């Protein structure tokens, strides 16, 4: 079932590419149909999902592939990958519907995005490092062609920059994976086996070196400041749906890699480097927010808020590797998750709360940013520009296009973390968990204030003032444009109002990740005693 989910778009993409003389309209609707079927499939899987044992998987499938190097076709889902796979299907369906109006080579575009969907789902499903890497790289290739083929502005340069930058990152990731393979005994690329018996425990130097390589690779993809500079030009010149997939799904591949690969496979190194990761997260969150505040280009601004929002994810994941918070009190006698815990049954420790927040934030950011990029696409479609503020020829759109304006306002408030939207649930968990673990992370709270300022300012620039648009009018949203945005925002609201079903899925896997990486008081003592003996 999972393999069907992963490869159905690829088969459809192949058919669209190979079959001669498919009419454009048929290609567009075929894409919508396949993306819709994918969504139905993933919803069915979510309904059939049963929480696996800690560290285990559901919908697991393993087939011999290249046994000589210890790699196999191994896929499966757990409480972290399932929500992200569902997010992927939602975002790609939104793109398919939005692209119903695409006039430029729609058949090729449909094939390309179906291919991309397989690549993204493949990353979330992969339980083998080689498989993970293959899908990870294919997603970069697909996005390169999307920007170069359907972008605007200086698209060739931006596409090349995107490709080289992120490809460089993936090479660093490959080095890390090979390091893990060589350190494992018996040699294997299998993530589940590696997690059950993490290599490089007790060899801190090598472990940290492998961790650094993995952090470089995944950090570029996320992106973490200061290796984020491929993102703004890629977004500015990417086609609308390219930006949607890039921000909505592909940025998560980086942070998902941290949760899926780095944390469980290199727990010792993660603990050792936790402060570095936390610092990177804080810097990204504040730097992304500040640079976004200075933008006068709406799409670039949204791109930088992604650096900010993904910074919260990195921050929370780093905090999970730190000691402190309520875990200490739990370790000192009170039963975890019992009446003595501040968090009740939902989370046993502040670290787990942070990890849950990180995963919720990935889903939430995917939905909300996708909606914002779709609305930015409409802005450019009607006016030919993303410029806003002083010197811009666009203002007063609230009067010209009330529906677009209303949705933009809702999406902006969702993105700035207003309650009743998913971002609030995510950020509340991230901050509560992180600050309780490491109080210094409270400085990142300023990020949510700055994002509030920049979104309100953008609304003021675009929606109020005299009604002006460079091409005379500004036609309000059409159905194909409005429906995907509305659906994305409704989902974000649903998670914001009733987060419990999502959190119930995320919680057990987060608890497992946390139990692997969080240093407990006894572990710390044991490690300090065992380390000299082991080396």
């Amino acid at each position: 079932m999972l393999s069907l989910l992963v490869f159905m778009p690829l088969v459809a993409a192949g058919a669209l590419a190979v079959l001669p003389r498919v009419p454009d309209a048929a290609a567009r609707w075929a894409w919508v149909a396949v993306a819709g079927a994918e969504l139905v499939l993933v919803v069915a899987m979510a309904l059939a999902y049963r929480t696996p044992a800690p560290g285990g998987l559901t919908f697991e499938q393993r087939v011999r592939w290249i046994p000589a190097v210890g790699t196999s076709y191994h896929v499966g889902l757990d409480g972290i990958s399932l929500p992200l796979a569902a997010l992927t299907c939602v975002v790609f369906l939104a793109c398919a519907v939005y692209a119903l109006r695409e006039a430029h080579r729609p058949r090729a575009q449909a094939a390309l995005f179906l291919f991309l969907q397989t690549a993204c789902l493949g990353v979330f499903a992969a339980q083998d490092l080689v498989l993970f890497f293959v899908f990870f790289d294919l997603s970069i290739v697909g996005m390169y062609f999307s920007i170069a083929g359907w972008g605007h502005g200086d698209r060739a340069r931006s596409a090349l920059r995107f490709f080289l930058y992120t490809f460089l990152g993936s090479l660093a990731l490959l080095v890390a994976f090979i390091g893990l393979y060589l350190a494992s005994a018996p040699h294997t690329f299998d993530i589940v086996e590696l997690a059950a018996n993490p290599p490089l425990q007790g060899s801190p130097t090598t472990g940290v070196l492998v961790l650094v390589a993995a952090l470089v690779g995944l950090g570029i993809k996320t992106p973490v400041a200061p290796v984020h500079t491929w993102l703004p030009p890629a977004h500015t010149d990417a086609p609308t749906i390219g930006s949607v997939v890039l921000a909505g799904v592909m940025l998560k591949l980086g942070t998902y890699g941290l949760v899926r690969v780095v944390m469980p496979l290199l727990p010792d190194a993660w603990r050792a480097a936790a402060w570095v990761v936390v610092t990177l997260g804080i810097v990204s969150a504040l730097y992304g927010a500040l640079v976004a505040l200075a933008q006068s280009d709406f799409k670039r601004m949204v791109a930088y808020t992604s650096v900010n929002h993904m910074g919260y994810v990195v921050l929370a994941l780093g905090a999970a590797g730190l000691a402190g918070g309520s875990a200490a009190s739990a370790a000192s006698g009170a039963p975890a998750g019992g009446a003595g815990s501040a968090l009740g049954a939902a989370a046993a420790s502040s670290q787990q709360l942070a990890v849950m927040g990180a995963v919720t934030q990935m889903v939430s950011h995917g939905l909300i940013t996708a909606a914002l990029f779709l609305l930015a696409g409409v802005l450019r479609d009607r006016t030919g520009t993303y410029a806003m503020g002083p010197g811009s020829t666009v203002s007063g759109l609230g009067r010209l296009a009330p529906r677009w304006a209303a949705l933009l306002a809702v999406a902006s408030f969702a993105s700035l973390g207003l309650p009743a939207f998913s971002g609030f649930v995510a950020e509340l968990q991230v901050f509560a968990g992180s600050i309780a673990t490491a109080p210094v992370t409270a400085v990142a709270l300023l990020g949510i204030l700055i994002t509030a300022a920049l979104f309100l300012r953008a609304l003021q620039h675009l929606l109020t003032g005299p009604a002006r648009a460079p091409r005379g009018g500004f036609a309000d949203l059409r159905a194909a444009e409005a429906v995907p945005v509305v659906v994305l925002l409704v989902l974000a609201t649903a998670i914001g109002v009733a987060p419990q079903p999502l959190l119930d899925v995320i919680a057990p896997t987060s608890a497992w990740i946390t139990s692997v990486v969080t240093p407990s008081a006894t572990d710390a003592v044991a490690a300090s005693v065992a380390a000299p003996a082991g080396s």
Partner: protein
Amino acid sequence: MSSLLWAVVLLPAATGAVLALVGHRLDKAAAPAAVVTAAAGLVLAVTAAVLHPSAGAPLVVAGGLDLAVDPLGALMLVTSASAVLLVVIFAAGDIHEHRARFFGLLLIFSAAAATTATATALPGLLLAWELMGACSFALIGYPWRQARTVGSGTTAFLVTRTGDLGLYLAVAAAVAGAPGLALADLPVAHEPWRSVAAAGVLAAAIGKSAQLPVSFWLSRAMDGPSPVSALLHSATMVALGTFLLLRTTDLLAATSWASATAAWVGVVTAVVLGAVALAQRDLKQLLAASTASQLGYVVLAAGIGSVSGGAVQLVAHAATKALLFLAAGAWLSLLGTRQLSALRGAGRRWPVIGVCAAVGLASLAGLPPLSLWAAKDGVLAAAREVSPALYLAGLLGAALAAAYAAKALAVLLGPEPQITTSPRTREEEDRTGPGDHGSATAHWTPHAGGVGGLQRVPLVVLAAAAAVLGALALPPVAQRLRGALDRAGAPPATPSVGELVLSGVVALVVVAVVIAAQLRRSSPTTSSVPSSSSSSSYSSAAAGPTAEWRQSGLRTRLQDWLQGWLGLEAAAHALVVRPVVGLATVLARWDDRGLDRGVSAVAAAATSTARGAARFDDRRVDGAVRSVAAAARAAGRLARRSQSGQLHRYYAAAAVVLLLAAVLLALAPSA
């Protein structure tokens, strides 16, 4: 039981969401729907106040969205629901544009207020708290075609959200140090988390209730429609800011510093903002400053632990201030202005509004037997038990309140000016005034004759409430409230007869002096043309004792400083906004030119290295190969030269070789 409480919250939320989302197609139905919803909301609130239900739902953690009605929550819930109903009725007659969106937002706002009043755990409280901020942005910025009103909404949202960060901190503190996320768990958190939680709650409350040093957002918020101001100030966001402190007095008292901080912030705000109010020339600005000042007494009450005293002050202020903002809104609709100088005699021209406003202003002044007189004395009585300094400062604030209320009273009830200026000139004059309601122009003509019943009924009801609610602070009701609200050992908020008489006399004397001075000074200016008298009305508005002092530059500067709300907004811009924007600009430039150029430089270095390697490959490596080939060719040429075809050369060569061989053979044995 729990469904009752959910209905209290969800009924206005759902109706409001439908109205706000569907928009224009519901414009006609919006006002009736909102009135019916608000009326049902009041019935539900009263029922809930009697039955004390509780309800719960998980939010992030189990029990995160727990709601319950305790005596304090019940009082707040009923106050809030009553204010919502009256304001909605008034707005039905006053608001004519985008009605569906307006009433929708108003109802969502009231739902958030109801949730704040009943939330027992931090996540739910934070949810409602931030939603109120966002709704206030949308409602203040509701005349959104003017860039300034949206800017004012932005100011309100950003300032209050800065305080809200404190609640995020409090959640983290509870996770780290408390047995749970319920508000009741916070006082038993271990230090330093208990102090963090207290600081966070204090920051959030100060932000929302516009205490010093962030009072300025309330001034900007006056750009919104008057019904919004009425609701904001009386029984929702601003008032709920102080309600949170009443709710968390145990937490404040559990730290060594938070209670005293709250008490002093409250009493200093009461005095300083009272002076600010006295300096205003715009009726709504005067009322706004007086809100911060009056709610300062509630903050003071929370600081000294007198929940019942604070609650009564909160309720009495709610009735009084809702009344006054609605009256100001009515005049704004009728006259297109809210400048005090242009409102001279307005109370005589429209006697219903005039009488109601007079009751409200008299209550604000603290005149016996009206509500704020007794309510404020309750707080002051409790303060006297704790610290004489707090008591005296509070009394000073009360005198200032009497002065600014009397100032407005004298203008509104004074004689109408002889020369009635045309609305056109007034409007022009207003344009220069700070932040006037632009859509007022549209309202002027249809309402020139008077106000409808929809506006009159809420005014009369609120005037009655403002008159009698002081009874809550007097025995025997006060004793029962104390029993229900105060924890053991709280200072009693029951004023003695002496205190009541003293504050009543102070208020009476100040009011009499100010009105007398006001009338004496305004009589010569009435003969001049009021529309050109902005400077004379300014001097008439100032109640200075001597002419010399009035003319001194220091006084003018003090007056300007107070009138400009102490320059707080400018200070916030200079100290916070401009540095942050500057830093953002520098970082963005660095991101584009520095960081990105670094990346480009690496790429450029790679290509130039490649080019160098290519050149090396072409010239050196390939050159070496070519030179080997050339050497081989040269050697070949050399070898070819021996093949001349001339036999005598071959023989000569053979002879040389043989000779050499013979020599070698001869030498070999000896070698």
